């Protein structure tokens, strides 16, 4: 699964995207797996209420299922316009 990071999430983790092999059933499960990896992930995912997630390029909730999903992106609240 392709996992993307934007804005300060990207800066904290240090990379814009990576291929993650996972059996995580939901976004929350994936977050737990990433958090357990290294300090930089733990820092980026310290407060998920400050994060938003897109699943296959659509805004989603953290309890969204990941079965069949190809791309998950994590980022702070958007500031367009």
């Amino acid at each position: 699964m392709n996992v993307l990071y934007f804005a300060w999430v990207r800066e904290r983790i240090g990379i814009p995207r990576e291929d993650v092999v996972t059996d995580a059933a939901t976004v929350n499960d994936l977050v737990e797996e990433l958090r357990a990896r290294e300090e930089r992930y733990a820092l980026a995912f310290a407060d998920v209420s400050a994060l938003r997630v897109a699943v296959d390029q659509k805004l989603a909730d953290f309890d969204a299922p990941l079965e069949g999903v190809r791309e998950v992106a994590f980022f702070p609240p958007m500031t367009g316009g």
Partner: protein
Amino acid sequence: MRIVVQETPFDFGAEAEAFGAGRGDLGAVVTFTGVVRSEGDRSVSVMEIEHYPGMTEAALTEIAQEAARRWTLGDVLVIHRYGPMKPGERIMMVATASAHRKDAFEAAEFLMDYLKSRAPFWKREVGADGESWVSAKDEDVAALTRW
């Protein structure tokens, strides 16, 4: 309907002039353009906008389609830039056209409210005090509830 996501500046005058041109059925055209701002204690030398290629275009299209469902619109235009830009430069514009002004005004406001907090753009300001990501405002998220 036209959705444009680009790094280069756009010609606001030419876009406004061409929008809805030659259509006799559109009695109202509303345009809005957002400009990089630097003021007082918040001096900004450069604003950088990051976006999510692919999702950005899809999200803007979906927002514009929703506007077209809610109001009777003859045409919709959204242009949004990414990359570095300086104070005074135009970041984005929306234009809406309708037979009567109410639809065009309301749809333009709806588009602005939604692209503030539902389109995947992130602004970072570089100024005298260093660099920082612009935080989303609670009032911008709250603005969605009025629609």
